[in-house]
C-alpha cells in the first residue's frame, strides 16, 4: 500500500507543478494522436458514409472486414508499419521510422476502421430516414454524402472521439515504430511503459493521471454530444 500512496502523491505533484517532462510528453501525445485522429477521420468518415449509401456486390463482405479490422492487434500493426518504414523496407527511403510521422501512420491504421465502422452505422440510420427525400430531390452522390455527413455530424464527432480514445491509450504499435526516443517520440503510453520498467512508479503514475484525465474528458464529451442529439439542439 505504501508504494501506491507514495506513487500517487508523487504523480499528483508532477501534474500540479506542471513538470516539464510531463508537459513535453503530454504535448507530444496530443500532437500525434490529434493529427492521427484528424487524418483517420478524413479517410474514415466519407468511407463510412459511402459504404452506408452505396449498394455493391461485396458490400457485406467489406463491412465484415471493416468490423474485423476494428479488433486489429496494435502490435501487429506496429510490426507491419515498422517493416514498411524500415530502411530495408519498401518506404525506407522516406526516412520516417522513429519519427512522430511513423507513429501517426500506425495510429491512423489502427483507428480508421473503428471510426469508419461507427460512422457507417450512424450514417446508415440517417440514410434510412432520408433515403426517399434525397432521391426525390435528385441529389448527386456527393451531395448525398455531404448531406449525411453534415446532418450526422454529432454521431461522426462521437466516432472521431472514440478513435481518439483508442489512439491516445495505445502503446504496442507506437513503441515499435516510434522507438520511445526521449524528446523526440516519447508519448504518454510509451513513457509509462518505460518508467514502470525502471520501477519508477511516481512518474508512471503522474503520466497515468494525465492519460486517465484525457480519457475521462473524451468520454464526457461523447456523453455531452449524445445529450445535444437527444435535445435536438445545436
Amino acid at each position, binding site marked *: 500500500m505504501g508504494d501506491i500512496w507514495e506513487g500517487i502523491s508523487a504523480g499528483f505533484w508532477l501534474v500540479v507543478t506542471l513538470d516539464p517532462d510531463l508537459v513535453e510528453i503530454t504535448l507530444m501525445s496530443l500532437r500525434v494522436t490529434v493529427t492521427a485522429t484528424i487524418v483517420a477521420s478524413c479517410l474514415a468518415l466519407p468511407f463510412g458514409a459511402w459504404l452506408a449509401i452505396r449498394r455493391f456486390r461485396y458490400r457485406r463482405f467489406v463491412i465484415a472486414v471493416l468490423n474485423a479490422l476494428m479488433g486489429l492487434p496494435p502490435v501487429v500493426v506496429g510490426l507491419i508499419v515498422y517493416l514498411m518504414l524500415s530502411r530495408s523496407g519498401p518506404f525506407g527511403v522516406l526516412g520516417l521510422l522513429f519519427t512522430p510521422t511513423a507513429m501517426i501512420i500506425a495510429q491512423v491504421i489502427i483507428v480508421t476502421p473503428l471510426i469508419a465502422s461507427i460512422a457507417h452505422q450512424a450514417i446508415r440510420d*440517417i440514410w434510412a*430516414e*432520408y433515403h*426517399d*427525400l434525397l*432521391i*426525390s*430531390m*435528385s*441529389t448527386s452522390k456527393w*451531395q448525398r454524402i455531404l*448531406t449525411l455527413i453534415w*446532418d450526422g455530424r454529432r454521431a461522426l464527432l462521437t466516432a472521431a472521439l472514440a478513435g481518439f480514445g483508442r489512439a491516445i491509450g495505445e502503446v504496442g504499435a507506437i513503441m515499435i515504430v516510434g522507438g520511445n526516443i526521449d524528446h523526440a517520440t516519447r508519448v504518454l503510453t510509451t513513457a509509462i511503459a518505460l518508467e514502470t520498467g525502471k520501477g519508477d512508479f511516481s512518474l508512471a503514475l503522474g503520466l497515468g493521471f494525465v492519460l486517465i484525465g484525457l480519457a475521462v474528458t473524451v468520454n464526457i464529451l461523447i456523453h455531452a454530444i449524445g445529450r445535444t442529439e437527444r435535445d*435536438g*439542439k445545436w
Partner: protein
Amino acid sequence: MVTPILPLVMSGAVVKRRSKTLLGPVDLTISQSGFTIIMGPNGAGKTTLLRSLHGLERFAQGQQRWQVPLQEARRRQGFVFQSPIMLRRSVLENLIYPLRLRGTKRGRATALARDWAQRVGLDDALDHPAPQLSGGEKQKLALARALIPQPDIVFLDEPCANLDGRATREIETILQKANAAGTRIVMATHNIGQAKRLATDVVFLLNGQIAEQSPAHAFFNTPQTPQAAALLRGDIVE
C-alpha cells in the same frame, strides 16, 4: 421560353415487389395544367402510383416519358410524403437546402426561404430544429420545401392525413395558390370533401389499376364504377 416538361406519359407501367403486383398495368397521361386528385380505397396503389410518376419506383414492365430529358425533369418536380421527412436542421436550413442543391447563392436562398416561411406561417420558427415541429408544421414545411424551387409539378401523398382542420385549410390554400400560379399538382387523398374542393380531374384506383379517370364534376356527379359510387356515398369499398 422554357420547354414544358409535361405532358407526362406513362404506358403499360407495372410495379412489383417480391413478385406481388402493386400497380399496373397503368396507362396515364398527366396533362399540362390542372389539379389531379388520386382516389381509391386503402391498398389500391395510390402511393405506388405517385412514387412511380415521380420516379421513385422501378418498373417491372412499361415506361414513362417526360417532354424533356429525365435529368432535367427530375430537377423540375417535387414530392411531399405522407409522413414528412425532416432534415435534422433548422426550419430555415430545410428551406434553403433544395435551393442550394440547385446552386442558388446563399444570400438569395435565405431571402427566398424567409419569404416561404412567412407564406406557410413558420416565420416564428426559423431557427427551430425541424424534427421537433408539430405534425401540421412539419407538413407545411415539407410543402414549402417542395414548392420553393418553383417546380413545374408537385406530387403529394395524403399531405393532410393526420392534420386538424385548421392546418388542412392552410395547406389547401397554399396548394391552390401554387396551382393558380401554374404549378401542376397531383395529389392522393382519402378525404372526399378535400377532393371536391381541389380537384379538376380525378384518377380512381382499384387493385393497382385505373378504374376510372374523369373530370371532377363528372366523377363526383356520375361515377362510372359501382366502387366509386360506393366510395362517394361513404360506404366501405373493398
